[in-house]
């Protein structure tokens, strides 16, 4: 039975990731990138690829490190702590998991390029303000041997920088997932000016041609490929959010120990002690859900939906609490742009929305529990 304890390898991976990210991707890096108007750091992504992160879910035969979903969560968790900027979840987790469901030479080739860092992907699913892949409306009309894609996607995370897009569209008898280059004729990308200073885009598709070659999996059955990919992405995002919660929490407890008011450290006040302790309890409980989701995905990535929804629901709730408490306990300084807490707050809000918000996932759990 898989244990809900981090293995030695996982602890080592976390330590290594923390060491790297503290140096290469601290919050100050996100701040610098925001100030420079950048949302992708190619050099750091290449280093991450060299460490096997980009290929964390890519089979060894395609040059990946194939460490599994729990390991991907460990990396994402560490990235969350410092708000590291990278296309890790979009490319290394979501796209790699989708491509793995298809075992042809083309998919294997794409996986190899993901692992090497040469290709980055973005998932284009959302059409309205909420995540709702099962009801995608965008059309891909059959046109001879090809398809013509017409429609709009929004909140395509990492979509402005990605080389390729996974696009979900309606075909004659269901949903189909297309894997196309982002510079194909008729694809128009408009950069979204996101509150978290990260990459997202609104994309319009005007008569974009896609052939059978561009279909990932089978026509009219996108979900057999996309469902596991979404599950894996949601779990990694939940892990990232829990890392974010831990990062905001550590800053806050550090502040409670040094900030003085009324002549003493404010951490002596029971009102603040109990707020901090409650937050720690929430993070502990959420951490269990994250570990469980990783284990369940590693057991069977197509049968982990409830575990993943639980992780994302809890992670969302906890991250929102962590950043609110973070600002509250810091007081006025927490509201200033010069202080990092605001970055945590804005990233938490964006992550809360991406790949399904709290209600979306709570509904899934309720349905599974029979009410």
């Amino acid at each position, binding site marked *: *039975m898989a*244990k*809900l*304890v981090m293995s030695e390898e996982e602890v080592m991976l976390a330590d290594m990731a923390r060491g790297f990210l503290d140096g290469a991707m601290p919050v100050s890096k996100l701040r610098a990138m925001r100030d420079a108007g950048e949302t992708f750091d190619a050099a750091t992504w290449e280093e991450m690829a060299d460490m096997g992160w980009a290929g964390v879910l890519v089979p060894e035969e395609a040059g990946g490190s194939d460490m599994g979903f729990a390991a991907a969560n460990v990396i994402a968790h560490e990235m969350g702590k410092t708000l590291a900027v990278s296309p890790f979840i979009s490319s290394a987790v979501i796209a790699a998991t989708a491509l793995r469901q298809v075992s042809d030479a083309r998919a294997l080739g794409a996986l190899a390029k993901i692992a090497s860092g040469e290709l980055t992907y973005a998932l284009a699913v959302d059409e309205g303000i909420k995540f709702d892949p099962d009801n995608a409306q965008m059309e891909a009309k059959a046109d001879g041997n090809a398809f013509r894609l017409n429609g709009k996607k929004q909140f395509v995370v990492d979509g402005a920088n990605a080389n390729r897009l996974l696009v979900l569209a309606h075909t004659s008898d269901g949903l189909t997932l297309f894997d196309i280059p982002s510079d194909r004729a008729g694809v128009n990308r408009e950069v979204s000016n996101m509150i978290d200073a990260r990459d997202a885009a609104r994309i319009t598709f005007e008569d974009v041609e896609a052939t059978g070659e561009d279909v990932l999996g089978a026509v009219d059955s996108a979900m057999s490929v996309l469902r596991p990919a979404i599950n894996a992405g949601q779990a990694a995002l939940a892990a990232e959010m829990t890392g974010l919660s831990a990062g905001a929490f550590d800053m806050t*407890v550090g502040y*409670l*120990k040094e900030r003085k008011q009324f002549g003493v*450290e404010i*951490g*002596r006040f*029971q009102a603040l*002690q*109990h707020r*901090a*302790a*409650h937050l*720690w*309890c*929430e993070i*502990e*409980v*959420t*951490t*269990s*859900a994250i*570990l*469980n989701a990783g284990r369940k995905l590693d057991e069977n990535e197509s049968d982990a939906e409830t575990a993943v929804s*639980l992780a994302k*629901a*809890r992670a969302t*709730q906890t991250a929102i609490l962590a950043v609110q408490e973070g600002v509250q306990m810091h007081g006025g300084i927490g509201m200033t742009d010069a202080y990092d807490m605001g970055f945590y707050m804005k990233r938490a809000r964006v992550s809360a929305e991406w790949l399904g918000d709290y*209600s979306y*996932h*709570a*509904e899934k*759990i*309720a349905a599974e*529990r*029979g*009410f």
Partner: protein
Amino acid sequence: MAASPLEDFRAELRDWLEQNCPSEMRDGLMTEEGICWGGKDWVFTSDAQRVWLKRCAAKGYTVPTWPVEYGGAGLSRDQEKIFHEEMVRIDARSPLQSFGIWMLGPALLHFGTHEQKLQYLPPVARGEVRWCQGYSEPGAGSDLANVQTHGADMGDHWLVNGQKIWTSYADKADWIFALVRTDRDAPKHKGISFLLLDMHGGGVETRPIKMISGVSPFCETFFTDAKVPKEQIVGEVNRGWDVAKYLLTHEREMISGGGAGLSGGGRALGAVIKDTMEEIDVCLRADAMRCEVDSLAIGLTLERYKDQAEAGQGAGDASAMLKYMGTELNKQRHELMMSAGGSDALEWDGPVGNRAGDWLRTKANSIEGGTSEVMLSIVSRRVLGLPG
């Protein structure tokens, strides 16, 4: 492919349960009327209850993880998980519950001598002796170490005088384990001993306290010149606080286990909401969903801490977190169950049974075994390292 030993164990267990668990014991009933507490004066509510206890005790299944020589089945953590899963699968009632199992057992297994374990544990496992816990006193609630009940050293025995309060089911218990001050001059935590008292041995009186739920699960317990032979001590003289602290960890995990719904409470909410979907408001359903999400996550946290303990990483002060989160959730859950019951839930023993009584009982969850506020203070000082 050959089946793994764990799969073999599951198959055998399933077979055994199929043949030995009486059908009347397969209703998953976890409310007061379904519980078998055991003890000298226990009156079985049915022949099935008697048979179920007897069969389980013979296999060591009343205390599955205790060593075989002390009445258990010696199950590993993985086997215990399977045992629990298989019991839930057929909705089997727990054959026996008691403070002997939950608290005395862990204390003796950790601090007791081999002779003490042999003497006290098997009767607990067989449900023959019922224990209660004598911790709190009128002046020692959250400040538990402020114990005043005194044990005077009389050479071969202690002479115990004093009063305990909130002793659960003391009026029905045969023995009591109690914190007794054996050195009045030592600092408050250093003069307490953990003593075992025979409640039928003279000098012990109990008086039930009627609670807001209408019943009297708690008592006041009075000691008047109660004699306790010197060998009836767990751990060393004046080191009883170590035992008490260790046991509080267990108690907290136990109470939070109820909160996580592992004892059936969690499933109960889902079932109630499902049955009343037509009548209840969307907001109530949303609140129930939130409660389910938290129940599942807290349940996983209990699992995680058990896995950690097995890997040699004790929960320690983090058990305060489980206790706090589990009990607060349980209170919420019972509020939701009351709401879902509407006016039916407002009658004592009405159409939805004793739901109101159960609801009122949960209000003590965040007080007993250390209040939520004490738990948060433990976390903030000992886990977060905040000053104070």
